[in-house]
């Protein structure tokens, strides 16, 4: 059980000893289409790790699988040595994985501070008491999930009742944690550079600010690992540079490990310490920026001189 803020020392110790994120032969198939093909990925703690590859290489799919939006067909995912594949999306978030989206997805009709507060959700007390355990109606099959959830139903109902009671009565502990959350979020907004816009609706922000808000919201979950899906997409060079600075600060000042997808090579080569290259769902290369830049397979994947090498591209397709 890794409810992150409760036992930070434990994870930090584990982190020093292990890799932050490790996937082993991670495979994802969609009705005959192989989106990820036995991908082994290792992200070290405190790294800024890049994930690149041509369009349709399976980068975003990898993010979706790691964060629980898709269940992998096979393979395992570990965070700090603990299996997280098979967990529900909110459980993975609580375990310490957070993300942003390629096409910005904010809660448009909520204001800026509320958007960030949603990320802070699990850090706010339910009521005056702590509750152990949680409902886990999770299975391959929906009907089965419901059956499996049955034994925990009374506890889930009690939990729900407490949540409602806590919301209405607002005992001191709820207020305290709520206030702490608001303060934390305010600070995060300052961190990403959105001071003064707290009360604006997310929909009314400029594109760049929306990206920043998404970052703040992702950081609000206290992640150990942050997945950034094309954080500089659609930005001019100046904006892009400031985001790069922000990503560095996230790692340096907050100590959050970052795995990022990026198309702009200048960004990737400038900010990442290690880079993994995917093509047609397979890992074709991994190494430092310098190593990647000289890698023949990578060049071929990007430039598409496929005929000469043969097998490389055609095989995973079938």
């Amino acid at each position, binding site marked *: 059980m890794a409810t992150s803020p409760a036992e930070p020392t434990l994870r930090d110790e584990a982190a020093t000893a292990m890799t932050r994120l490790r996937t082993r032969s991670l495979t994802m198939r969609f009705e005959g289409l192989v989106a990820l093909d036995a991908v082994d990925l290792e992200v070290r703690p405190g790294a800024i790790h890049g994930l690149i590859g041509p369009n349709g290489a399976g980068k975003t799919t990898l993010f979706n699988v790691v964060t629980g939006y898709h269940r992998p067909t096979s393979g395992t995912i570990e965070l700090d040595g603990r299996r997280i594949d098979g967990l529900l*999306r909110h459980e993975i978030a609580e375990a310490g994985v957070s*993300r942003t989206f390629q096409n910005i997805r904010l809660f*448009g*009709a909520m204001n800026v501070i509320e958007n960030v507060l949603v990320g802070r959700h699990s850090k706010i007390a339910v009521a005056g008491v702590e509750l152990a355990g949680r409902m886990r109606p999770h299975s391959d099959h929906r009907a089965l999930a419901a059956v499996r959830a049955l034994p925990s139903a009374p506890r889930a109902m009690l939990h729900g009742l407490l949540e409602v009671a806590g919301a209405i009565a607002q005992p001191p502990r709820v207020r305290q944690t709520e206030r702490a959350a608001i303060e934390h979020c305010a600070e995060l907004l300052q961190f990403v550079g959105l001071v003064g816009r707290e009360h604006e609706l997310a929909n009314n922000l400029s594109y760049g600010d929306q990206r920043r808000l998404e970052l703040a919201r992702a950081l609000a979950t206290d992640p150990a690992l942050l997945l950034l899906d094309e954080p500089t997409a659609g930005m001019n060079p100046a904006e892009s540079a400031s985001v790069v600075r922000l990503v560095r600060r996230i790692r340096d000042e907050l100590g959050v490990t970052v795995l990022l997808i990026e198309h702009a090579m200048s960004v990737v080569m400038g900010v990442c310490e290690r880079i993994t290259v995917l093509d047609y769902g397979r890992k074709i290369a991994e190494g430092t920026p310098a190593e990647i830049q000289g890698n023949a397979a990578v060049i071929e994947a990007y430039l598409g001189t496929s005929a000469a090498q043969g097998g490389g591209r055609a095989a995973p397709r079938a």
Partner: protein
Amino acid sequence: MRELQEGADRRLRAWRGRAAGGAALAAQPWHAARERLRAAEERTRLPIANVLVLVVALSLPFWPVIDSRWLRILVLVGIFVVLGLGLNIVVGYAGLLDLGFVAFFATGAYTYAILSSPASPALQADLNWWLAIPVVLAVGSVVGVLLGLPVLPLRGDYLAIVTLGFGEIVRILLLNVVGLTNGAQGLFNIPRPEFAGWVLEALDHWYWVLVLASFILAFAVGRMRASRMGRAWEAIREDEDVAAGMGVNTVKYKLLAFAMGAAIGAFGGLVFAGFFTFVNPSSFTLLVSINVLSIVVIGGMGSTPGVVLGALILIGLPEVLQFDETSRLLSLFNPIVPFADTSLWGRQLASARFIVFGLMLVAVMALRPQGIFAAARPQVRLPRASGR
């Protein structure tokens, strides 16, 4: 590299410590000012406007124009305000389009009726109305969860049609499970609320009880909305997938939305049964669901004053159209309008009141598609020293 990692983890620890305790924050220059402003905001949690509305609402029975006909309609409006508050959670906050809200209304009304009506064929238990409140709230929320479970994976209009189906199923069950519900004959002579000899029967008393109940419910619903639960609901409404990715247990909060809406809807049913002392399945048709949804949308989704206004318009207006005052008012136009006897309009309007009702829905939507009280105010505001 190793060094870098250790450094980062140290900083991470420090950051976490600060976040939990908030001690480091006190050093911020703007912090003190923010605290002051927050205290001021908390003092005005009960804005004067609310008190004013409450006083005006409570004083209505003393107004000379408000006679028992008005009060009777206001009580019916009050019941629909309660229903609207319930559905507002489901549709307005959590964004779950529910076209079968009548199921919960019926659940509440029949739970009390079965447990108290002398005509009840089974389970008659002389249950006191006031004691029935927790029973009905509990039964309502359980039914809400049970009906919510199978529709969890559904979105948008698929959800709408399935909930509509549930509403119809519940009504048909009420009709056909005669051994429990007495079928189409319904359950009658349901006892009125009684408390230590005081019987809730007089219209003005009913009205006051409903005003107070609505205020308590509105307060409770407002609190829910302003809590992390309310934010979770809104996040689900805005983007369910992202909400889950931010640590919100979407299953739990969707079920909570159904349960809360259902409990409040069931309470509305309890009031209905206690007030009319008679329930039969023909009071629990799809039309009720449609009416409540229209109230919520016309008033402005997610807005509590909107619910009140919506109920006044949609429930009150068709009744008021057949009041004698309406005819008299219309006959005042006689000198202005040529070639027509406006005094006859009253009766025509009364018999065409549902046409008026329908056209009004179209007109209100055309003029204010967001509802009358559009775009509800965000809940969390951050007082700032800079004071934008």
